[in-house]
């Protein structure tokens, strides 16, 4: 067992976990942040994507210990109070989700994509960049639409800030 200290959604937290514990299990089991999901066991599906120090990472592929001292953001940490993050709002407005299971990972990946590409995103790039996130419900059509919509909203809001 080890005591892991890290920052999650802006709060300093610590948890006593077995050394083999994955970050996703620390989030779900120890911190009760169940928005981060597990959809596979081969790091393929991306339902578990969170941000570690601002970068999208599959939390099923990181030991909790590796995340010690880092700044982790989960799906629960991106809205500002009642105000949805522009990516969350875009997924809702464009029907970019159905069962909702892949959605947290999709949104966290998509935010990272927009951060990396800024205003230079097009459909082909979004489709290519979503390679690590599997959705079984939407056929991706409205997810791609959501990401492109959010890219516009995020650039506008970034410009405004």
């Amino acid at each position, binding site marked *: 067992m080890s005591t892991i200290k890290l920052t999650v959604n802006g709060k300093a937290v610590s948890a006593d976990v077995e050394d083999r514990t994955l970050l996703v299990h620390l989030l779900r089991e120890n911190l009760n942040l169940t*928005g981060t*999901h597990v959809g596979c066991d081969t790091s393929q599906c991306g339902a578990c994507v969170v941000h570690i120090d601002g970068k999208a990472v599959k939390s099923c592929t990181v030991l909790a210990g590796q995340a010690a001292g880092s700044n982790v953001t989960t799906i629960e940490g991106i809205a500002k109070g009642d105000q949805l993050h522009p990516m969350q709002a875009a997924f809702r407005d464009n029907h970019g989700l159905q*069962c909702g299971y892949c959605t947290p990972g999709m*949104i966290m990946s998509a935010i990272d994509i927009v951060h990396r590409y800024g205003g230079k995103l097009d459909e082909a790039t979004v489709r290519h960049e979503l390679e690590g996130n599997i959705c079984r419900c939407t*056929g*991706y059509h*409205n997810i791609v639409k959501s990401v492109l919509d959010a890219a516009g909203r995020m650039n506008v809001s970034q410009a405004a800030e």
Partner: protein
Amino acid sequence: MGVEGIGASVVRKEDRRFTTGKGRYVDDIKLMGMTHAQFVRSPHAHAKVKSIDTSAAMKMPGVVAVLTGQQIVDDKVGNLICGWAITSKDGTPMKMGAWPAMAPETVRFVGQAVAVVIAETKNQAKDAAEAVVVDYEELPAAADIRAAIKPGAPQLHPEAPGNVIYDWTIGDEAATDAAFKSAANVVSLDITNNRLVPNAMEPRAAIGDYNEAEEHFTLYTTSQNPHVARLVLSAFYNIAPEHKLRVVAPDVGGGFGSKIFIYPEEMVALWASKKVGRPVKWTGDRSEAFLTDAHGRDHLTKAELALDAGNKITGLRVKTYANLGAYMSLFSSSVPTYLYATLLSGQYNIPNIFAEVISVYTNTTPVDAYRGAGRPEASFVVERLLETAARQLKVDPAELRRKNFITTFPHQTPVIMAYDVGDFGASLDAAMKAIDYAGFAGRKAKAKSEGKLRGIGLSCYIEACGIAPSKAVGSLGAGVGLWESAEVRVNPVGTIEILTGSHSHGQGHETTFCQLVAERLGVPISQVQIVHGDTDKVQFGMGTYGSRSAAVGLTAILKAMEKVESKAKKIAAHQLEASENDIVIEGGMFKVAGTDKSIALPMVALAAYTAHNLPDGMEPGLKEGAFYDPTNFTFPAGAYICELEVDSATGKTSFVNFVAADDFGRLINPMIVEGQVHGGLAQGIGQALLEGAVYDSSGQLVTASFMDYTMPRADDLPSFKLNHTTTLCPGNPLGVKGCGEAGAIGASAAVINAITDAIGNNKLEMPATPDRVWHAIHG
């Protein structure tokens, strides 16, 4: 239509919780004192279980119990059942082998559970499961249909000699044979409909919670139909009588059919919870999903089409072998029979049809309904045959279809179905226009000049949805009625709760069902709550599958609404001192027609509950229920056209365009309908190009992870161009037909027709991987 009424693309109420990580799926639930289960599963496709040594596992840290198949048999937990009886052509009933929840003696597919470890943590349960020593005696396995039916094949179940479950026929064999004898042209095809793994993104999970004080069980489970689960667990599996069993299906992360069935893990979680006196949670991982979720499709078919000299279809003859896997899953028997062969008429006037379906056991995962369930297989047979016929006869594939379309309704096919309404020409016209069919020849020539092979493929599908008239399906062998129930509760303050037996696992019922209330009562959808997925809250229901929630579930809500409105009008009339017949409902107000007198719904509701001033003899309260049993199936239909290019050097396929024109009757929420079509198309295209469950000859599933089984990803798919044509369904008051499965039913034939058109070789099996396409081009 108001801004939130029927026909409005209202954004979904459920999306706030899903986009903020506040969904509540089974694995998110933690109960006091909860233990964790890990199953010990067979590594062999066929073996005798000689002994199970649990002693080492019992000594492992945190282990609470290790339970085996023999114990579940000793406790008289019932075997799993198949709920649809099929009779063979010789009059004998289907031959069902016993399927215990954990195997005491014989395992028949890789992944079948033989024991379960219950421990304080999931990791401890996993560690201890590794320490359970099972002594197997391997037996020869039959890993596919051909291996199972050849003489001397390994026998799976003593009840089913030759591994044949049933040999069933439909249609008039003599008349069909005669049509072939007098045919001017006959087209024939051998078709493999590839086995698919549903892969809802949320793996199955279950928590069993036995309350000793109340002698009461609660099951939290990933189910599309919690009431059916309770019924089966109670009536057939002897877990507990229904009044002592609550089944809760909270947020469920996709189903696509795979979460209809009651699985061994749910039975074991309940049974084990009583054994250990604590809640028991099992959450499957993806490997377990591949090995134990019911698979889909897996047919071998020979199909023949007879045409006269004028290219009118005169007959269709089909022989299909269907692989049902090692055991008969809950509705497995109906999928390749009444959900498949009854749709073989497609959109066409075919006077003579005969089909024979032979379902067989193999040493593979059980096969059951997966999105479309039989109808994709039927549509693929019919649409591949039509396309092949057009090429063989050198006529335009659109024109050959049009020449044979059914144009008058109702239309009785030779295979049970009575199509109520449709306009197949309109869908085809819309799709052809959307893709500029007329300009294709030019585009193909241009592509050729650039060294690319371009092809176009059509698929005109029809399906039977709104499952189903209880009397009809009962006469065909169904063990349950397929009605739906609903309750409408108007609270004293005028807010409304709708209790429904339908279950939403992505379909958006929490929004669309509210839209009906908004349409009729003018109540904002924020004032309406949809209650579903809990047998303690909703009296009964048959659940969600077969594109039935709008046609059957929402109609049940409408029927209950009508009763509420009728009573509310009586109360309003009494309050307004007017005649009940003069009351109209407009924008949430009960008005006396032609006057300025009105009373708002909340005041009517309050009057109903205070009961200070109700009409003489009226019961207080404003709450009504209804059961709705449909009178017929609904028949969504449409046309899909795929245009693509093939790189002859690599065999890789690239989409140029994919258009759809669907007729779903009235659309409640077009945005959600289109989302359903997108998802269905992705699964149909996935079947055509990417997906396929592969077993080796020993019965090992070699595509048992997302590393090996190709799930469609964002860059495998195009953006879709959707169109709608509309004929209202006359069978239900809303005029709706169902849209959940269409894409998966129609898409695969369009893709394969397009590739075979591009490469000029009709011999191509699904999934049409670059390797297969390359070989089809280069021999």
